[in-house]
């Protein structure tokens, strides 16, 4: 029977086997996992840095506006097994002397682009251990892209505007999320067992809670940053 199989059939069989292996690897917690949902609330007023351009010949053109901080929170599973990821693309724009969003979560191998939306230069750089780069000065409308190949926290700054900062959190597993405008998040297929779930904010730091994930039963975890709600 094998002898009569044509080359395309071999290829299809091989591809199928590889696909099955990848599927198992892509969702290490798929068997016996459950979703972990919840809501993030910020419990204290958060301020952002404002320009202090004392040593400048021009007056300040931009007035910073209030920003929703819930988009700058990242919820993730701590000590999760690596694997099950695919690269993605994300974007951090430079608009009105602000990185938007200020926090981005991606998987290892992903690329983040940094378009300049301001009519003047920025100089995006990072000296973080997980990724070191300096994009130089480039004008409005242009973009530069950085690939992140190591898991960890990458703090991003602008050399020209000291009040600008952003964070790229790079994961080697798929269990992370950025809450929506209401603070809601949903991590799917979290491996069952005793787990630690963390919510991180650039200024408020990390808050983590323990959660018991049981197969097929969604777990609900609410965060109030910076104090954990037990």
């Amino acid at each position, binding site marked *: 029977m094998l002898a009569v199989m044509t080359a395309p059939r071999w290829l299809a069989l091989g591809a199928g086997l590889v696909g099955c292996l990848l599927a198992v690897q892509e969702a290490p917690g798929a068997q016996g996992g459950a979703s972990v949902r919840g809501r993030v609330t910020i419990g204290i007023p958060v*301020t952002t*840095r*404002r320009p202090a351009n*004392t040593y400048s*010949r021009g007056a300040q053109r931009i*007035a910073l506006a209030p*920003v929703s901080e*819930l988009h700058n929170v990242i919820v993730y599973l701590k000590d999760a097994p690596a694997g099950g990821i695919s690269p993605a693309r994300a974007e951090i724009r430079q608009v009105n002397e602000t990185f938007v969003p200020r926090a981005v979560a991606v998987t290892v191998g992903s690329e983040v682009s940094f378009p300049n939306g301001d009519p003047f*230069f920025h100089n995006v750089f990072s000296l973080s251990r997980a990724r070191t780069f300096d994009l130089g000065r480039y004008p409005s409308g242009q973009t530069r892209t950085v690939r992140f190949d190591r898991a960890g926290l990458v703090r991003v700054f602008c050399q020209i505007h*000291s009040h600008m900062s952003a964070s790229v959190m790079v994961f080697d597993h798929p269990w992370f999320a950025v809450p929506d405008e209401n603070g809601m998040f949903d991590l799917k297929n979290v491996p069952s067992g005793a787990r630690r779930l963390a919510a991180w904010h650039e200024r408020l730091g990390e808050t983590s809670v323990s959660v018991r994930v049981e197969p097929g039963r969604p777990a609900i975890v609410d965060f109030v940053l910076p104090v954990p709600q037990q």
Partner: protein
Amino acid sequence: MISPVRRHTRLVIALAWITFHGLQHDAVAAQDSRPSRVAVDSSAAVDTTVNEGGEAVSGLTVDALVSIDLGRNVQIVTRPFLQRLAASGEWNAQLWLAALRYERTGDVAVRVDAGYIPSPVGMANLQLRPHTNPTIALPASLFSSLPLVDVGGPRTTLLGAMYPLGISATVSSLTWDVRASVMDTSPARTRRVFSDGSPPNPPRFAQFVLGGGVTPFVGIRVGASVTRGGWERAGESPSARAPRTAIFATVEADVSRGHTRVQAEWTRDSFAVNTGHVVARGAFLQGQQTLSPRWFVAGRVERLVSPAILAAPDVLNVVRRTQHLQGFEETLGYRLTPELTLRASHRMRRLFGRDDYDHVGAVSVVWWRRWI
């Protein structure tokens, strides 16, 4: 008569009160962030310089820049400063900036500073903080004394690093900026806010400054300024029977793109003396190139030209001869973290009236942090 120390203490208490009240932030919706009322950054730099004879001297500079938003586009800006002079080992505590600022943002933005303000003259004065200076040494035009301009008169610099008492108004857009200022200090003669009389502060002279610049493309700015005001008071030199004026003209350029930044400044001082006018001029060109996220190189070439008095048999018969100061500095820098930079440089300067260059090596650690 209030002593400088008591005046200093009162000023510190007043600033502390303002800072405390500035920190009382309005209740905001917690899910939204708002720009902070207070902005604070600080820097510290330790420099060690070794000359050709192997003698090493170290200097220390610590400062903080504090800006407090009082609302209605009004801020208080201040910069306390502490320095240990490398040459003498003396400590120098100053308040280099203490100004009330009105700033209206927009396509045509307006700024008015009143109090002890950053010098509105030239460009080099904007790079006095260690983390904004690409090399270790500052341009000679700011600190190196010119040869005596007037027989028996005061020493001058080409363009003193100074924080005068004054008022400055700036209007700017993306493509142009103009400013007009009135201040109490001649750019040729630096004043200190806190002075114990050694050396004594120069007299106050009204100075009128007009300046501006154009930005034809993002990354290129060309600017100029003209300053007119007194530089020598009657009786400061044997021939000065009336106050004398000086005119300072500067032209500056700042070009940056990618990982490269080049800046240049040209200055011309015209001092009125009893025999007419004495003209001193100078220029520097400096650049910085980022080699990698952590490594950079920087350098500066500078040249000052000034007449020096050779002989003065009488006040109307003064023999002058042109002298030059020439300097070069090459710097290699390494950014350890976003807040910490290590630099090493070689500097050679041929001072006024000298034939040979002095060579020095220097290392520097610069720390800078934005707190709020």
